[in-house]
């Protein structure tokens, strides 16, 4: 089970969280202006990164707030957590798992 750092509550077990999938997918401001390819990309296409993945989590059985995280999908190590609305943080390329 993963130990996940909620930016509001601190480290909690994975069971308290709901996974929210890929982060930073903004709903189109004018959906009617999208063509079918753009709409399909918004709804269905996912980066499915093997490596550092920006993703949403929700502390569903805690503060119930959404936040974002960077996780390495080849190790499941969390590299950073940040609040919704904040930009994806730059990672120290020297590595090191926080």
């Amino acid at each position, binding site marked *: *089970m*993963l130990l996940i750092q909620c930016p509001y509550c601190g480290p909690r077990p*994975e*069971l308290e*969280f*709901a*996974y929210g*999938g890929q982060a930073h997918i903004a709903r189109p401001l004018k959906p009617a202006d999208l063509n*079918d*390819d753009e*709409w*399909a*990309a918004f*709804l*269905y*296409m*996912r*980066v*499915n990164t*093997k490596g550092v*993945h920006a*993703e949403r989590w929700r502390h569903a059985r805690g503060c119930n707030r959404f936040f974002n995280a960077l*996780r390495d*999908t*080849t*190790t*499941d190590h969390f590299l950073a957590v940040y609040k919704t609305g904040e930009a994806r943080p730059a990672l120290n390329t020297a590595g090191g798992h926080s």
Partner: protein
Amino acid sequence: MQRFSAFSIIRRGLTGNESWRPQWRRASPKASYDAIIVGGGGHGLGAAYYLAKEHGLTNIAVIEKGWIGGGNTGRNTTIIRSNYLFDESAALYDHSVKLWEDLSQVLNYNVMFSPRGVMMLAHNVHDIQVLKRHVHANRCNGVDNEWLSAEQAKEFCPPLNISPDIRYPVLGAALQRRGGTARHDAVAWGYARAADALGVDIIENCEVTGFQKDAHGAIEAVQTTRGLIRTKKVGVSAAGNTSVVLGLAGVSLPLESFPLQALVSEPIKPAFPCVVMSNTIHAYISQSDKGELVIGAGTDAYTSYTQRGGLHINTHTLDAICELFPMFRRMQMLRNWGGIVDVTPDRSPIIAKTPVPGLYVNCGWGTGGFKATPGSANVFAWTIARDEPHPINAPFTIERFRDGFLIDEAAAAAVAH
């Protein structure tokens, strides 16, 4: 190819078993092939076999980054069934069940297909309605499926607890008698041996690192860790790593890769006669011929490529197993493991051409690809050989997500499967 038979086993046994040769050659990549399959699991090896057998393409290779059958082919719970709701799915999965039925004879390799029956349990009114709808839809499509009362379910599977006072009581079940299990390793090995005998090169420890395209954007070569290989046709059957491989060719897919776990118990004498599945409480169980209970869980919540998941997922499944089958409560579990499954939004696969000419993909099988191995391989080979889909896989395109023609087995079953 050395054919297997009772006679050959006795004859070679009497001479010290020293005349057996390896079942397939250890091939090295040639400079070019007519077609290359990326991914040496059951789906990829099967596609190579059918390309050689049914379409006359024998100058082909299967390239595999690890060893054949080492991915999801060797990690699944071997359940075979075709009781899917929609017409498109029923046609695809039943094509596969029909190929399973004589696969051992066709390949001259005992894949131990055992149509012992797959029983899916209903625990609430919604389950009953959904499963009965499946029964009727399946029968309209010529797929066997029948409704059982709780008592009939217990008669078919005596270890089942149908007591009304458990948390999720068994209210009935849908039974597909033609469903069952097979030996997963033997499927990979059987296809590999048969394909090799037709001239297919099986190249292990060879990972794709890129694609080379011509001036028109069509595939002309594959870059690998064992050098450049020229080819005009590439079929990718890479399961959980499909997004990564197709990403090298600039193709995006509606896929997410999740860990899916399974576990086996210590081996015991034959005690469990069929396959029982419960989508509602996430428990899938059968007994292998070796005696182990083979138990499947649901996926972990998050995407990952680690081939492992959280122990709480297995614990949750074992809670359900122990309530449904109290006689297993004191058994010990021997091993658990994970595989990485590529899941589509509608939980139906993609077997199709891609926007890149000469590049084909067979992916998105999610948590249920093993059952489809022969059928999927068969129509994928057709698609690669003729550059057009077989009527059975024609609906399973990438474009269905753009055009709105989902084959929504996700909504039909309300769970991944």
